């Protein structure tokens, strides 16, 4: 390559990188959001109803009570064992990383995030913060999300298809459950209580079309 060709190449290359950032494209190897950027404070100041002015002026922001810190607990062994599954024939089993032949980290994301409806960071970041220009380029309406997924439906499809099960099979997975401990700490970081959240998703027969061959 000649020197001027290299100059053009660099212009094009960095132009593409900048276009990716400007239009918020997150398609590897282009990315506008190279690190985890999503953060929403739990004790954000919000206008309380009683503080809103009756004269039509702006509501006065009022702090919520002292914050609690909620920590989602990950139990690596439990996540590896996997979902509590109920099959069409009524039997129950655990479906985990070994049955699905996936890595531990992938398994805990499915077990602690997707089954609870939790989106990957890529979804959250784009849905929360796409600029008007980026929305216009994608032809999105006001409030329309960039990414959306019916995670229960996708989970049933992934789990059953991986295990070679079709909707008519007696071993077809009809229900998946997961549990996660939540620890709540007070303003002085003392442990206040623990709770368990429970994800319980059921197969919908209308989704059988996902298995059409």
């Amino acid at each position, binding site marked *: 390559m000649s020197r001027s060709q290299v100059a053009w190449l*660099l212009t094009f290359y960095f132009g593409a990188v900048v276009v990716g950032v400007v239009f918020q494209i997150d398609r590897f190897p282009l990315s506008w959001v190279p690190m985890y950027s999503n953060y929403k404070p739990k004790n954000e100041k919000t206008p309380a109803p009683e503080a809103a002015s009756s004269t039509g002026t702006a509501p006065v922001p009022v702090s919520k009570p002292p914050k609690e810190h909620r920590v989602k607990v990950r139990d690596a062994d439990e996540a590896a064992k996997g979902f509590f599954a109920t099959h069409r024939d009524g039997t129950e089993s655990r479906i985990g990383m070994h049955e699905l032949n996936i890595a531990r980290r*992938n398994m805990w*994301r499915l077990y602690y995030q997707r089954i609870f409806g939790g989106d990957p960071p890529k979804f959250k970041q784009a849905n929360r913060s796409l*600029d008007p220009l980026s929305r216009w380029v994608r032809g999105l309406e006001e409030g329309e999300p960039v990414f959306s997924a019916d995670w229960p439906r996708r989970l049933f499809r*992934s789990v059953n298809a991986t295990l070679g099960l079709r909707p008519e099979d007696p071993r077809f997975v009809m229900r998946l459950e997961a549990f996660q401990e939540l620890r709540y700490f007070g303003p002085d970081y003392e442990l206040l209580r623990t709770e368990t959240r429970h994800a319980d998703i059921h197969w919908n027969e209308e989704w059988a079309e996902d298995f059409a061959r």
Partner: protein
Amino acid sequence: MSVAGSLQRVGSGLFFTGFSGESLGLLRVWLGYTALVYCLFQFATLVILDPLGPGFYYIEPIWYFSVLGIDHHIPWLTPVSLVVMVAACVCVARGTHTRLSIAVLLLTILYLKGVRDSISGDVHHRLLIPFHMLLILLLSRSGDVHSVDARRNPARAPLAEWEASWPIRAMQAYLVFFYLFGAIAKLRVSGLVWFGGGRIEGLLMSRSVGFAHDVGGWSLRRLSWEMAQIPELCAFLGFLTLVFEVGFPVIFFWRSLTLRVLFLAGATVFHIANFVLAGVQFLLMPLLFVVFFDLAAIRDRLRARRRRSAG
């Protein structure tokens, strides 16, 4: 003088001067072995998968898998890709069929990253910088120095300064962009509140008390726990993150070796602390900071020192 002319002169000064062919060749050797360590660290989780086991149907295939219609994992292909990736890294470092090796390495990275990220739908960004650096190497003449290719074909013209400099400066530019865009993305998504300390506090708490069982290393996790309870410290660390990411591009313009060493030492501490205290997986990023140094000059300096001590 026209504005375009001035820009061209500045761009030329920035991208086409400063390095020799030796520097580029040595950098390729470094990046080849670094890619080996980096990629093994990234894809270690795939090693345990059973090559004869079931193929997982992806929950959210990465975009290029969607385009190609790849909707499930092919388990036997993963260990094969890992072996090819390792061989390609070694070939890149040795400079054997350099361009082909780099292209193969990029393809294996795309495939293995696709497998890893499509299973649960996360798209990680830790491979962005190495990928772009390898892409730039692919377009350069990095295989013409310090390589098996160069020994096989000694008749090739030596690299001019501009040919050796632009790939290194382009890698530096991408790296500094990465950090700057990191800060811009945080501001776009979350606003200044990201840097207020709450995010740091959450990471530290999750790291320290977010595990069901004591998985070892409590002394370090205890440090995270203690730090999380000091809001002023978390706020200071948040502010430091902003300054660090926004300020990163200055290193592209610094000529002083001492300043660069000091800044990058700080950046290295930043990544190690992030990994140890908050579980952020950018631990190996400092290996890539070598692009900010002239490896040929360092080698010559070390040789001179060795000669002095021997003589």
